[in-house]
């Protein structure tokens, strides 16, 4: 391989480090106004009155829009394709706020600072309504009737045949709970819109994961034809799934349409945490049955997920959690019941891994418990149960292809010196500091196959100077997928990747595509780029043959040049061929292909950690961390390592410190600031060793599979395993904050 497998920076690293990259919040257009939101301070209420007079008096304030002077029409942030069935529950500004942070009004001002200052001058009078802070409240009927279509969404399904249980089997019931967490992309949620009333055209810029998905929501909401909406993906300052739903785009689109002026809306950190989207708290009760020799026979899971005030993607998320339960272990029977329960809390939605990390927490906890009861080594127990090549995903009836989870486990076991490290924990511990070693593993998907519109279109063109353009609807989340496509196209064409230009999502310029989620960018779009590169080579050869007056099969393409096989001195460069195409044949050297994903291989990781728990303070330090991943083929190892290390920081934080759970129960007010929401900093984050197992899959580009989500899947579960090993506890929740650890130790001492 000439280019694949070398280390590259992200494509726009230099612009970013110069501070010249334009993120959506940096965009300024003439006549632009700025919005700042007024949000509900109560978890459930009716707005009786809004007094904007003091705000309107402020110089620079253009107007105040609110629930009484704007549309009552509703949208769903998650209905980004026709086949997603989800009720429309959300208004741009609501008179019936259903959580603290729900949008009630907005100040529109000539500059952002004025807009924010004026928000404090708006007085809202509410009539308070009973609120559900947890799914239990909802199931007890506290908010029956809040949404006409109901407040509970339930899935029940069985796959496989329930095997006979016998007396010697280990039958265990476990519970796992996790708190509400937030993405903390460093760039807050932001959108800019500009409506041209003459053309009836609306342009929206936002860091999003699907320009066509956003367009679907906005077009239907504003009743503007699809082809009159130009949705542009701006440089993304991190998403982690938080920017995949259509939250601000309909708001700015509507306001720009209403005011006939460009509008910019950047949420504050508090806004991103409470008004946008977060990861759902959930609780799962799980029954697992193992034979005495450690073979997992069946799993039965009952999950309750708190969807927050609007169901959004939660109904799909809780279903997917059940489907993810078969992506890592092979067993004969799964019974799943999942409920997404509406509450009066911030809206839950997509988060990196889309339920797979939560599923890993549940199943890996059950595995560790079973290993103890069966008196088996936890890795041994997993090796008896993980899926192998040839296994079939019972939900999608497709193979996992060349899955390498066993190798991840055995490689990691050796590299981490597992037995030795585990044994030494006791001698390294003292009265105060307890050392523990733990591990977990997990699997994920590669694209949507066989569901949804999982196709990609790629168009390549050679310019007159020989430069190659790849027109594709990509959405780089900031982890380097543009660079990945450059490398893939460079490898196929034998051209320096830096010289290839790759487009990102823009519905006026780039082809239809469902978007960049579900770890489909590299696997699906990358494969489409390979296919298009091959088609471009054929077109180049065809064009060159006409120019040189020789049969096509007498020519060979190599690294941007074509030569006659029998006479290599006779050659043409891409530049010459493109010019000939334009001026001799009146054509463009331009090809376009469609690619439909044919598979959904398994992709896996096994993680190992050593932690130190300070029993005086409850603080946990992650001392060592190893992540082993089955990647198929590493297109750009440098970015893969960075992504894995970032995922470990995120997963450790979520396991140990991150929680939005209200400090004062009953108020509906979650943690809403980074002062109280603790993300691991550089001093607390572990050093992470990353090992990649490369065995090319049969499908992805050069056999590559996704990494961005799967690398996050086992992290929190690994930390739970290690902390429980250190303390001899059975903590079945996250985050394991110092308070909770100390409380537990206190109880144990009594």
């Amino acid at each position: 391989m000439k280019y694949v497998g070398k280390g590259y920076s992200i494509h726009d690293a230099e612009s970013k480090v110069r501070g010249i990259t334009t993120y959506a919040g940096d965009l300024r257009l003439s006549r632009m106004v700025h919005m700042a939101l007024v949000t509900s301070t109560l978890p459930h209420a009716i707005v009786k009155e809004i007094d904007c007079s003091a705000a309107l008096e402020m110089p620079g304030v253009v107007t105040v829009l609110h629930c009484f002077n704007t549309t009552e029409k509703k949208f769903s942030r998650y209905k980004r394709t026709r086949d997603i069935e989800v009720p429309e529950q959300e208004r741009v500004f609501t008179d019936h706020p259903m959580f603290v942070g729900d949008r009630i009004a907005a100040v529109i001002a000539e500059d952002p600072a004025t807009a924010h200052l004026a928000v404090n001058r708006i007085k809202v009078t509410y009539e308070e309504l009973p609120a559900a802070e947890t799914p239990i409240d909802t199931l007890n009927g506290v908010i029956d009737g809040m949404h006409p279509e109901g407040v509970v969404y339930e899935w029940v399904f069985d796959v496989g045949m329930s095997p006979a249980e016998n007396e010697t089997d280990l039958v265990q019931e476990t519970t796992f709970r996790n708190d509400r967490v937030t993405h903390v992309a460093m760039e807050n949620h932001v959108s800019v819109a500009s409506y041209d009333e003459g053309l009836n055209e609306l342009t929206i810029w936002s860091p999003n994961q699907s320009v066509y998905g956003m367009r679907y929501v906005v077009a239907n909401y504003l009743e503007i034809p699809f082809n009159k909406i130009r949705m542009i993906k701006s440089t993304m300052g991190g998403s982690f799934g938080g920017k995949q739903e259509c939250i601000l785009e309909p708001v700015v689109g509507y306001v720009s349409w209403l005011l006939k002026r460009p509008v910019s809306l950047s949420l504050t950190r508090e806004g991103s945490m409470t008004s946008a989207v977060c990861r759902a708290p959930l609780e799962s009760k799980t029954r697992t049955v193992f034979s005495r020799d450690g073979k997992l026979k069946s799993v039965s899971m009952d999950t309750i997920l708190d969807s927050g005030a609007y169901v959004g993607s939660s109904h799909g998320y809780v279903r997917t959690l059940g489907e993810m339960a078969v992506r890592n272990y092979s067993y004969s029977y799964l019974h799943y019941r999942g409920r997404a329960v509406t509450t009066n809390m911030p809206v839950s939605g997509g988060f990196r891994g889309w339920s797979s990390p939560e599923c890993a927490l549940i199943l890996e906890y059950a595995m560790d418990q079973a290993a103890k009861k069966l008196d088996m080594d936890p890795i041994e127990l997993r090796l008896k149960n993980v899926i192998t090549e040839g296994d079939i995903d019972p939900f999608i009836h497709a193979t996992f292809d060349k899955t390498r989870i066993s190798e991840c486990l055995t490689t990691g076991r050796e590299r981490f010196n597992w037995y030795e490290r585990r044994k030494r924990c006791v001698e390294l511990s003292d009265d105060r500091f307890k050392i523990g070693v733990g591990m977990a593993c997990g699997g994920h998907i590669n694209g949507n196959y066989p569901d949804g519109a999982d196709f990609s279109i790629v168009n390549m063109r050679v310019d007159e100077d020989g430069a190659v353009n790849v027109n594709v609807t990509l959405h780089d989340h900031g982890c380097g997928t543009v660079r990945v496509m450059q490398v893939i196209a460079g490898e196929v064409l034998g051209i320096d990747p830096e010289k290839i230009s790759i487009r990102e999502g823009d519905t006026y310029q780039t082809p239809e595509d469902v978007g960049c989620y579900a770890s489909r960018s590299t696997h699906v779009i990358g494969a489409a780029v390979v296919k298009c590169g091959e088609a471009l080579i054929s077109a180049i050869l065809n064009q060159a043959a006409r120019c040189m007056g020789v049969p096509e099969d007498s020519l060979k393409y190599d690294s941007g040049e074509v030569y006659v096989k029998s006479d290599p001195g006779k050659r043409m460069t891409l530049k010459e061929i493109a010019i000939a195409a334009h001026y001799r044949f009146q054509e463009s050297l331009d090809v376009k292909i469609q690619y439909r994903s044919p598979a959904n291989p398994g992709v896996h990781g096994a993680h190992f950690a050593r932690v130190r728990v300070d029993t005086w303070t409850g603080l946990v330090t992650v001392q060592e961390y190893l992540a082993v991943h089955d990647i198929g083929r590493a297109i750009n190892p440098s970015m893969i390592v960075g992504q894995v290390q970032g995922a470990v920081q995120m997963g450790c934080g979520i396991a140990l410190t991150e929680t939005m759970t209200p400090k004062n129960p009953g108020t509906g007010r979650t943690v809403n600031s980074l002062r109280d929401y603790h993300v691991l900093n550089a001093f607390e984050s572990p050093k992470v060793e990353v090992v990649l197992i490369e065995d090319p899959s049969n499908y992805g580009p050069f056999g590559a599979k996704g990494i961005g989500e799967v690398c996050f899947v086992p992290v929190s579960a690994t930390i739970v395993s290690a902390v429980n090993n250190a303390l001899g506890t059975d903590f079945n929740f996250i985050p394991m904050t110092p308070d909770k650890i100390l409380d537990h130790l206190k109880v144990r001492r009594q």
Partner: protein
Amino acid sequence: MKLTMTVNGQAVSFENILPTRRLIDILREDLQLKGTKEGCGEGECGACTVIMDGKAVDSCLLLACQLEGSEIITIEGLAKEGELDELQEAFVSHGAIQCGYCMPGMVMATKALLMENPAPTEAEIRNAIAGNICRCSGYSQIVSAVLSVKGSPEDVEES
């Protein structure tokens, strides 16, 4: 109030500025230096870090009334005659940059460290950026980038 200060080596003055106007707004809105980013507005994330009189500061916490006569360097002021600063180069070549939103702050925080302490240990680097959140990278490549710039041997201390 009136305000005079230096930004990236150039004198700037305001005839009539609100004493409570934040430095980040002066930079981003009044001077159009959009490289400096706002991640929290309350001194918790470090995305807005700039160098003021040789020290890394959160520009979201400083107000116009605290700035008279100060010398500010922002991310836009690091490259000299178009050439990246050595530290900026190191961030690029070490793969330390992903989404990039934390980067202006991260680069300025570590630049301030290097200005004060040209050969920091790994622990000193991690300490210096303890107030700068990066949600993408896990910090390792950032730390390696900074270590590569300084002259002294690597510190092997555990973090």
